[in-house]
């Protein structure tokens, strides 16, 4: 349609979920007053040396394996040099010509995948805040462990970039590597985009996009850039090799710097760090830690529980959701019921309470118990909701909750008979209508009894009691 083919490559930074930094014992924390999560090593004081965090290497290895990358038995840390106030050593420790992993792929659509070029480990920089009194430096983030995942330029459409990031995030989360929250910065993405005439095999001049703070923003920025470059080329202009920052609030990108002024990073093998040597046993151990990936889990759920495609997608969205589901089923819950309650009730309820499954007041076995009480008719649909709400706000078992709330089901006709009589006395026209064969009028009487019992009346017992009473009266 436009006469141009879009070529997109992504560079994704994933914060590895370690407790301490990549090369220092300082704790990693999203919060904390500026410069309180800082060790001598992070400030780059004279005389300090980096000490590698094995946990970071383990997590990076898992990330690479999860996307099908090949772990390199020998890799090397290198120094990437540039002067900037958020970079205390004047260089960033990264990997250059010998990265931790090569290859892999991420699905980007039906029968479409994007190849991964490489995955390497590196440390994060600090954060600058520009204020009236000058530029302030916070080194809490400096030295935090990152994995950088670089794709091949296989993406042809901004929507594919969106799909790429969703799949990547899902897999990385599943592998237990990172929470991949773009808003919080634990996943960051830069995008390279160029256009070439349809049929050409020579890439055009590429532009790098930064400040992409959500997956949707990545897509929007790429769509904008696609239009901008198309217009430029169609008008006989030339695309300049540059870095552009995305401004989502106005829906435009602005030039940040020309690539011609790009610094010479003078990569140097870091002489403070021995080569990173791993063996097959290490790789196998990391592979074992990843366990099942989302697609495998979806297939298994469909097979084992006969759940719908929609259900298994919802369950496999996050490792914790599936794990919770499986624990509940193992505790005796019906798979379909457990899935419905988990997806439609528990997760939204936890979200509004700012909780997650780890901190859920309702454990998988409690959910299983609740479902069992519902199945054996101790609870009605209605009372089960009340028990559920009660469980969310207090740590008790469902049985205890029923007792707390006085929600024991009333199935004893002797107990219900006075309430049935009251209802018929209050709504004689309804009773008459039932007697005349207008069956649906019975619902009004049922509702009345239910209100009086706060939903505790056994629907079946109530139904027959109402009918026999009305029949007896007339």
């Amino acid at each position: 349609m436009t006469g141009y083919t879009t070529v997109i490559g992504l560079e994704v930074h994933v914060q590895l979920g370690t407790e301490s930094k990549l090369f220092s014992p300082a704790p990693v924390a999203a919060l904390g007053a500026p410069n309180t999560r800082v060790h001598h090593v992070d400030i780059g004081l004279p005389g300090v040396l980096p000490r590698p965090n094995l946990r970071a290497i383990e997590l990076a290895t898992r990330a690479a394996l999860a996307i099908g990358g090949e772990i390199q038995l020998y890799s090397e840390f290198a120094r990437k040099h540039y002067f900037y106030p958020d970079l205390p050593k004047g260089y960033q420790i990264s990997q250059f010509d010998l990265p931790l992993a090569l290859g892999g792929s991420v699905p980007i659509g039906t029968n479409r995948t994007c190849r991964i070029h490489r995955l390497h480990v590196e440390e994060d920089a600090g954060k600058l805040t520009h204020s009236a009194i000058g530029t302030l430096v916070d080194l809490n983030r400096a030295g935090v462990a990152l994995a950088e995942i670089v794709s091949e330029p296989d993406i042809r459409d901004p929507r594919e970039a969106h799909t790429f990031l969703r799949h990547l995030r899902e897999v990385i989360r599943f592998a237990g590597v990172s929470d991949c929250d773009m808003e919080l910065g634990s996943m960051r993405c830069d995008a390279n985009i160029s256009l070439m005439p349809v049929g050409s095999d020579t890439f055009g001049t590429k532009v790098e996009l930064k400040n992409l703070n959500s997956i949707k923003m990545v897509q929007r920025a790429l769509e904008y850039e696609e239009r901008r470059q198309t217009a430029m080329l169609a008008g006989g202009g030339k695309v300049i090799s540059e870095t552009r920052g995305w401004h989502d609030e106005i829906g435009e990108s602005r030039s940040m710097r020309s690539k011609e002024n790009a610094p010479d990073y003078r990569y140097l093998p870091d002489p403070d760090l021995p080569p990173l040597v791993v063996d097959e046993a290490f790789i196998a151990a990391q592979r074992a830690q990843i366990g099942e990936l989302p697609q495998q889990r979806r297939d298994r759920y469909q097979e084992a529980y006969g759940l719908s495609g929609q259900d298994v997608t919802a369950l496999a969205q996050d490792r914790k959701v599936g794990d919770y589901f499986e624990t509940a089923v193992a505790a005796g819950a019906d798979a379909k019921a457990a899935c419905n309650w988990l997806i439609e009730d528990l997760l939204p309820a936890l979200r509004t309470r700012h909780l997650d499954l780890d901190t859920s007041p309702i454990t998988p076995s409690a959910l299983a118990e609740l479902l069992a009480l519902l199945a054996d008719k101790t609870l009605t649909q209605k009372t089960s909701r009340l028990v559920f709400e009660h469980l969310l706000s207090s740590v008790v078992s469902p049985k205890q909750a029923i007792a707390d709330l006085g929600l024991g089901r009333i199935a004893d006709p002797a107990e219900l008979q006075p309430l049935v009589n009251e209802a018929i006395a209050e709504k004689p026209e309804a009773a008459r209508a039932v007697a005349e064969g207008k069956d649906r009028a019975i619902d009004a009487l049922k509702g009345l009894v239910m209100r009086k019992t706060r939903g505790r009346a056994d629907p079946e017992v109530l139904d027959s009691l109402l009918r026999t009473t009305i029949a007896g009266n007339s």
Partner: protein
Amino acid sequence: MSTLPLTATALSQAIRQGDITASDVAKDCLARIASIDGKVSAFCETFTQRITEQAAALDNRKQAGEVLGALAGVPIASKDNLLVANQTISAGSRMLSTFRGPFTATSLARLEDQDAMLLGRTNMDEFGMGSTTETSAWQKTRNPFGDNLVPGGSSGGSAVAVSADMCPIAIGSDTGGSVRQPAALCGVSGLKPTYGRVPRYGLIAYASSLDCVGAIARTAEDLALWLDCASGQDPADATSLPTPPTVAQLLQERSDLKGVRIGVPRALNGEGIDEEVLAATQATTAHMQELGATIVECDLPSAKHAVPAYYLLATAEAASNLARYDGVHYGWRAANNDSSRQSSIETTTQTRSEGFGSEVQLRILLGTFASSYGYSAQFYDRARMARRALQHEFQATFKQCDALLCPTSPTAAPQLGDSEDDPLARYLWDALTVPASLAGIPALSIPCGNTNDGRPIGVQLMAPHHQDGRLLQLAHVFQAHSEHHLRRPQL
């Protein structure tokens, strides 16, 4: 009685036996420095309060019946590039004129663990970049063997502190010869251990793949005592080696050199070396032969590439290691008259132009060039290849011999100011010490004579990786049968 002529070995023994107190030793040292350091300027600063308190604490523990450590009450000076908690440590640079150590370097903390006392920090070439201690931002240190002679460098202050009897052991660092060469020029013994044997944590880096913490003493025996206390793996230094067995006992194992094969590489024993130095080296070889050693002629052809390879690698690493001095977080910061208009890169540039001396700036520029895009393949990468070739040659040569011998320095100590004009000539001066640095092997320098005008001459011995103990054993046997190391300067 003055305690100062005693070796560290004798001193610690006397203190453990209760013959003398640590406080007496500390007082003697401080008095000696007060009376003569004005002539030689070895110290930037003495840790007077620290050592006085440390000595009193040691004496109290001794009185309470505690058994003190292997370095009990031994006063030890340390180079101005090894961090000492709460003391100013400047690496000889204006850049760090106000920098205080937030902790004590592992290599010094281990000495304190053995009850040594840190005496003060000694003068050095700025960031270790120099061979005469003249590039220090603070003062010119003088060789005690002659008023106008340089002490060598970069650990010149440490060599002078031992040579002038201000302390029995002084710690230095050796990147391309910075312990061995000043030891040779000042008539004392200096050891550069196997790379990684003594941890670098707390050593202000010059060139990380070459930097070694070393020591200067009057005897090989004291160097062995020091090495056993300072060696061993450090979790804070990823390049440190697993803790090796101790070496001191090796020194008692032999009294001659029977069966020892000493290689004399032609490349390091001829061209560019002064006649008097060569003669003293040859006399040493002959003496060792008399003691039973077999002398093996050998070659080390890659040694001719050692100086260019060393200067490319060392400066490339230095340019990287010194990038942290940008005036943002600590250290010198250029006065900023108009911060609103000055960019951070301008402030950084000005800070570095003011904070670094000219030799440091020269080496940063060289290193930046050697590692820059388009040039690194031609310079930096080729230097790494030359380094590997040299390492292989050393390995092959050590199949024919147990140790290698050559002069430590091509000349005895020159006059102050002599070497200031021509950097290339200065760099060639390191030709005999940089090969062992590039190979990462242990090497030491011991006195082996003097020139007609009385300047000390040192001989260098090198051994295979991890053979630091064998090296000290050789030196110890030689010192048991010679008196070169006993000659003291007249001050």
